[in-house]
């Protein structure tokens, strides 16, 4: 058997200028990152402090770095599609169909699997353990494996730019088109293995978060004193555990079809393509709730802190989140009303879909009533939340319309549907994560992000969104389908030109984000968060230092009410120092998890290119690594009491220099909680 399988020199992207430049950018990007690390002589730091770290905070930060890199890559795909469609009236534009199809497939796959999923895993990793008063997640080693498997999946998508092509079957990969009969190349295999490998990582993340929230809460932190963000991560973890197996089953069957000639979804020989669509969306709908729920959690935290009020209707919000947790498994057929199900089946799933809109409606009103009688401070996280509140309801409207089968018959697969789910994902998911990014950035790095550029970024994002996607709603009425690289109907072009302008403004929004990061790192000494509580926060994560100590809390906090940190400030027990520190056991750093991730990447690459010997070698090495780790019983070290004391002393010295309250300079500031005992 050829040692390189089906990998040949033709797999390199020299067939077109655009493909070659895409490959060049990817390779240069990777090399420049390595050059920067070498320039700063930071290889020891990167390898021994970050890549081998099992600290949930560092893993969270690395997840968000993956997400932001992939956001840029995914946006380049979007910009290419918008510009192609803007000029493609009666001409073929600058992208041939074979390339355009790769771009819309990689855009969808990257944005869902390698931008949104890592972003929410990163935020949850960074914040949730601190919010529940825990020292770490339940399974730090598995947490690191999840990170590196997700990174391996992202790596496969990026490598597909340089070696071979990516899938042209869309981010859903519907058969029979994605079968080897119609797409014989490596494209769909790249998509399959990127999704399968990162899917395994996500299932493990779900198990990790669920066990952490149930088993590792601080004393007194009952389930109904959890901050809302932790509740949404709790339900998201449940959805991850029970939904991702459906994706694993669907993709594994498609892999068996393509590679070993099975007949699950083929046209002939007894295949049933409809079963793939059923299995895919069995995962697909819970997946979109996995994406949106953590964003709802961020909005709940941000709205309460920047309205300087308790969150309104906490119980309603928790019940609504749990209701979505269950109902999200009962609606998946609304993704294929048009396949031909009977009226009884279509109307059942249509009705269930309208029912699931109720909890989300309740949440929007609860956030509005949190603003009611508050003192609103318009910081960038709050701006993103307000932009979300105003814009998301349009997406909710189009969602409920599409929930009605007869309307879906008309609007399915058109740009109306594209506008609907982008209306859910950009103002909903992405604004939520950007708000979380700017809200918890000080907690991760110790200094705040520049607010002027944050505000500019928000305005570019929201105006860009409206200009880019409102025309698409209109195009849906004009009957324009999705995934069209050229068209002959003149009435469509004006709207597509506006959409391209909107995409450019969104590009400016991304530039503002980059400038904001650059400016903030440059002026970090003016933006320092010395107290660990830069926003006069309410939940427990604001009780740790910024950046938080490896063990988060030297002494586990005794929680007595909801909004635990606000309550501790109110009771005057906020920054108390214990008389004696205890030694703390923490997980040791290890390279095994990074090795498993790397081996997963090479295994995926080998399976794609049918290098069977390499695939078997990788599997064996992963098995050996797991057995070695499973037999190693002393994977923890104990930080001595005086080491803890040294870290805490430094923290309290920094605290002494901090202003009474970081928000007191704000014009809208409504005062700090002061002990009632006076």
């Amino acid at each position, binding site marked *: 058997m050829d040692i390189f399988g089906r990998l040949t020199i033709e797999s390199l992207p020299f067939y077109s200028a655009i493909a070659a430049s895409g490959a060049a950018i990817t390779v240069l990007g990777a090399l420049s990152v390595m050059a920067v690390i070498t320039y700063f002589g930071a290889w020891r730091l990167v390898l021994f402090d970050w890549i081998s770290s099992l600290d949930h905070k560092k893993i969270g930060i690395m997840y968000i770095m993956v997400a932001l890199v992939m956001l840029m890559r995914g946006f380049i795909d979007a910009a290419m599609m918008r510009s192609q469609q803007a000029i493609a009236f009666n001409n073929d534009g600058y992208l041939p169909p074979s390339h355009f199809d790769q771009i819309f497939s990689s855009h969808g796959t990257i944005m869902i699997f390698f931008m949104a999923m890592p972003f929410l895993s990163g935020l949850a990793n960074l914040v949730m353990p601190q919010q529940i008063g825990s020292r770490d997640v*339940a*399974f730090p080693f*598995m947490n690191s494996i999840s990170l590196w498997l997700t990174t391996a999946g992202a790596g496969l998508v990026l490598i597909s730019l340089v070696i071979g092509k990516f899938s042209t079957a869309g981010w859903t990969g519907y058969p029979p088109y994605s079968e080897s009969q119609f797409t014989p190349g490596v494209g769909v295999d790249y998509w399959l293995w990127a999704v399968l490998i990162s899917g395994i990582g996500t*299932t493990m993340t*779900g*198990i*990790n978060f*669920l*066990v952490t929230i*149930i*088993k*590792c809460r601080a004393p007194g932190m009952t389930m109904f004193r959890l901050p809302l963000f932790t509740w949404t991560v709790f339900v998201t973890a449940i959805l991850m*555990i*029970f939904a*991702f*197996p*459906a994706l*694993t*089953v669907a993709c*594994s*069957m498609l892999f*068996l*079809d393509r590679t*070993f*000639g*099975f*007949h*699950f979804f*083929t046209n*002939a*020989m*007894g*295949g*049933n393509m409809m*079963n793939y669509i059923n*299995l895919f969306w*069995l995962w697909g709908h819970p997946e979109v709730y996995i994406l949106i729920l953590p964003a709802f959690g961020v909005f709940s935290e941000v709205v309460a802190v920047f309205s300087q009020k308790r969150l309104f209707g906490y119980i309603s919000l928790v019940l609504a989140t749990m209701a979505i947790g269950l109902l999200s498994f009962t609606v998946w057929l609304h993704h294929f009303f048009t396949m031909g199900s009977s009226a009884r089946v279509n109307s059942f799933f249509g009705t269930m879909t309208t029912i699931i809109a109720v909890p989300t409606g309740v949440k929007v009103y609860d956030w509005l009533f949190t603003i009611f009688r508050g003192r609103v401070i318009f910081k960038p996280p709050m701006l993103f939340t307000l932009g979300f509140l105003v814009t998301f309801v349009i997406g909710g409207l189009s969602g409920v319309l599409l929930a009605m089968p007869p309307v879906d018959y008309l609007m399915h697969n058109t740009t109306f549907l594209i506008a609907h789910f982008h209306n859910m994902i950009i103002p909903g998911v992405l604004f939520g994560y950007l708000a979380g990014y700017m809200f918890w950035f000080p907690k991760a790095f110790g200094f705040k992000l520049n607010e002027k550029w944050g505000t500019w970024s928000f305005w570019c994002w929201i105006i860009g969104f409206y200009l880019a996607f409102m025309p698409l709603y209109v195009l849906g009425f004009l009957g324009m389908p999705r995934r069209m690289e050229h068209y002959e109907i003149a009435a469509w072009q004006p709207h597509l030109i506006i959409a391209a302008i909107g995409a450019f403004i969104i590009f400016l929004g991304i530039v503002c984000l980059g400038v904001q990061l650059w400016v903030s790192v440059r002026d970090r000494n003016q933006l320092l968060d010395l107290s660990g509580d830069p926003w006069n926060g309410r939940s427990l994560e604001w009780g740790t230092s910024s950046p938080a100590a490896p063990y988060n809390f030297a002494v586990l906090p005794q929680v007595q009410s909801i909004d635990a940190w606000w309550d501790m400030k109110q009771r005057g027990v906020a920054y108390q120092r214990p008389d004696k520190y205890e030694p703390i*056991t923490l997980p040791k750093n290890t390279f095994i998890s990074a090795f498993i991730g790397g081996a997963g990447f090479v295994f995926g690459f080998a399976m794609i290119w049918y290098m069977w010997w390499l695939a078997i070698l990788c599997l064996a090495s992963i*098995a050996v690594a797991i*057995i070695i780790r*499973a*037999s190693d*019983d002393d994977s923890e070290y104990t930080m001595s009491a005086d080491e803890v004391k040294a870290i805490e002393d430094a923290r309290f010295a920094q605290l002494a220099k901090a202003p009474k309250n970081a928000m007191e300079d704000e014009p809208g500031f409504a005062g700090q909680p002061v002990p009632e005992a006076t």
Partner: protein
Amino acid sequence: MSAAADTMGAISPHDAEKYEEKEFGFWLYLMSDAVIFSLLFATYLVMVGNTAGGPPGKELFSLERAAGETLALLLSSTTFGFAAVALSAADRSKVLLWLCITFLLGGCFIFLEYSEFSGMIAQGAGPDRSGFLSGFFTLVGTHGLHVSVGLLWILVMIGQVLFKGLTAPVASRLMRLGLFWHFLDIIWVVIFSVVYLPGLL
């Protein structure tokens, strides 16, 4: 405290909590695996009629071999139970004995399944012959794969018990292996009740 606790030394509350978390985490993994198998069953039921001119289940399955496989897996589940009994009695040699017997029974199950698969493929009724056969091979094959991983895990545990003795981490891993092994036997009950018996009616 049972005799087992003494040989493992005092369990600190931190460690006890950790093993509880590990067991609950493994239980959640089993739930997600149950979802995978349930969807494989649903796919099998959808595909069972799609023989595409190829041989249906009736011609391919053999009741005797299915009975043999069921017996092997059922007995191995029981012998693993006896290993757990020996573990709680902290009797190392008995634990090793029963683990080996469980391994042999599991191996016998895998051998029977391997011969069944190779027989069918030799007959030209491989997974690439029809949708029904793809569904059958994937469902029963995935279960077979899980049993093989379980056998490898048993070997690793035999090694750990030999070299480390019945320490708390080893005992905790044995407990999780027990969960996994019994779970696989439950899946096999559903497999013969959905695939073999209705197929041979």
